[in-house]
């Protein structure tokens, strides 16, 4: 038996805002969250890219020590957005701890800040290098640190899924959460992803010549998805959580339904681990549509992965054109905040839900002149006040992983 799955709460920490109103304000006013990179003693002087999608505002983490003690920065983000989502949903603690609610949450690689501290001990030359590693360092840094800190803080006893597939981490979280409810394994899932401020990731992409470097003095002008003057991605930080519930359960308890998840697909390019692959992307969209039981003509809006790399945006445009033609409006939301890595899928899902609710489509920020090779699709070149009935969120990751999610207004 297949069951309907709806989104009943959401929360995001992003470079362009935290609260829903702030995010919408930034989208409508074309506000960028990309700033000059913060200096560190390790990498920032050596990388060419000097921009970062930065959460540049204070967040009041009022967590007790018994929770804080196993949390690195990434888990603080994760627990905060989940806390806000669960508070907004108003679920009873009895249900949260019943085993019927699970967690699907991940990050690119746990907490690099804590991992860096561990390695500093190892390479310090100090006699204390082994004993200096704290008992909780592993709990703070491990790849599933977000998911299990969430289970601890909210006493969640259901299943735990912790994807760690870089840029598809949180779109997988939502997709696998959706499937867990759809096929009756869980009645609700809190899903999402987070990544903390990390210059290691900048260095990795910088070395691959994939980072933006031409806008170091004007950070707000990069990244530039689909634009002729795009010069690469901008690494960012952030977190997002959505609560998914089985439709009848949500309706019965009077939950506020933000949208329905109607389809999901995840596939792999089956080859190169770095280069984008038009056929792999196209197949993921096609299978996602099939999973959702809709045709390409039903989709009004596509949130493209669109990292603003030279090749990635072209491959994605070609794949979208092959499936949709010039049908749906396409926006690359990373223009606003850079690439928030493990959290990009859920943040882009939440923003799409907000746009669905308010009836607008944000344009791709910094898209001034469409690259002719990306001009085969219908770009959202300006703010459009128009309803979105069905939207798709696309994300692709190193390792050749591709995902497509489909949302419907209820």
């Amino acid at each position, binding site marked *: 038996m297949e069951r309907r799955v709806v989104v009943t709460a959401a929360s995001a920490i992003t470079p362009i805002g935290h609260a829903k109103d702030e995010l919408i304000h930034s989208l409508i006013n074309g506000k960028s969250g990309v700033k000059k990179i913060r200096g560190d003693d390790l990498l920032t002087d050596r990388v060419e890219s000097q921009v970062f999608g930065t959460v540049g505002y204070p967040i009041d983490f009022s967590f007790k*020590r*018994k929770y804080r*003690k*196993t949390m690195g920065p990434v888990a603080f983000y994760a627990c905060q957005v989940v806390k806000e989502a669960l508070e907004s949903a108003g679920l009873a603690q009895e249900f949260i701890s019943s085993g019927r609610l699970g967690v699907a949450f991940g990050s690119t690689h746990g907490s690099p800040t804590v991992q860096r501290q561990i390695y500093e001990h190892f390479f310090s030359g100090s006699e204390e290098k082994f*004993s200096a590693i*704290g*008992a*909780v360092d592993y*709990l703070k840094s491990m790849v599933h640190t977000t998911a299990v800190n969430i289970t601890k803080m909210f006493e969640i006893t259901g299943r735990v899924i912790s994807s760690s597939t870089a840029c598809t981490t949180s779109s997988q979280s939502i997709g696998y959460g959706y499937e867990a409810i759809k096929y009756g394994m869980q009645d609700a899932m809190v899903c999402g992803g987070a990544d903390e401020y990390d210059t290691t990731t900048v260095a990795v992409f910088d070395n691959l010549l994939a980072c933006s470097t031409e806008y170091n003095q004007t950070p707000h002008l990069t990244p530039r998805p689909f634009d002729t003057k795009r010069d690469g991605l901008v690494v960012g930080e952030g977190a997002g959580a959505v609560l998914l519930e089985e439709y009848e359960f949500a309706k019965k308890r009077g939950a506020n339904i933000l949208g329905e998840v109607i389809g999901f697909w995840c596939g792999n390019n089956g080859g190169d681990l770095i280069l984008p692959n038009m056929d792999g992307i196209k197949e993921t969209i096609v299978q996602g549509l099939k999973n959702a039981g809709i045709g390409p003509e039903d989709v009004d809006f596509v949130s493209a992965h669109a990292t603003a790399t030279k090749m990635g945006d072209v491959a994605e445009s070609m794949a979208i054109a092959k499936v949709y033609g010039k049908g749906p409006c396409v926006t690359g939301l990373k223009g606003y905040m850079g690439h928030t890595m493990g959290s990009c899928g859920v943040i882009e899902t939440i923003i799409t839900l907000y746009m669905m609710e308010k009836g607008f489509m944000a344009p791709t920020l910094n898209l001034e002149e469409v690259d002719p090779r990306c001009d085969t699709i219908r770009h959202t070149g300006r703010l459009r006040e128009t309803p979105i009935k069905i939207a798709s969120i696309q994300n692709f990751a190193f390792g050749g992983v591709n995902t497509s999610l489909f949302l419907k207004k209820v």
Partner: protein
Amino acid sequence: MTRDEIKKNILQIFETEFEIVNPGLDDNLTEEHDFDSIDALELLGEIEKMLDSELTRQEKKDAMEIRTVNQICDYVVSLAEKRTLI
């Protein structure tokens, strides 16, 4: 290093590292102050710093049955005696 000094140090560690202020000396730390296995491991690290000496694996295992501040003080006294610090 006297037992009183050890007690004072331990209570200071509880306040600064574990945010547990003035626990009763015979309180069950797990039941009354949420002091868990992770805290116990962290405390052993703090004791090593206090004694300026690494604990052996057996000494660490011996600590796992400890439940109260008084028992912690007795444990540290025995470690200090072995190291001729008392």
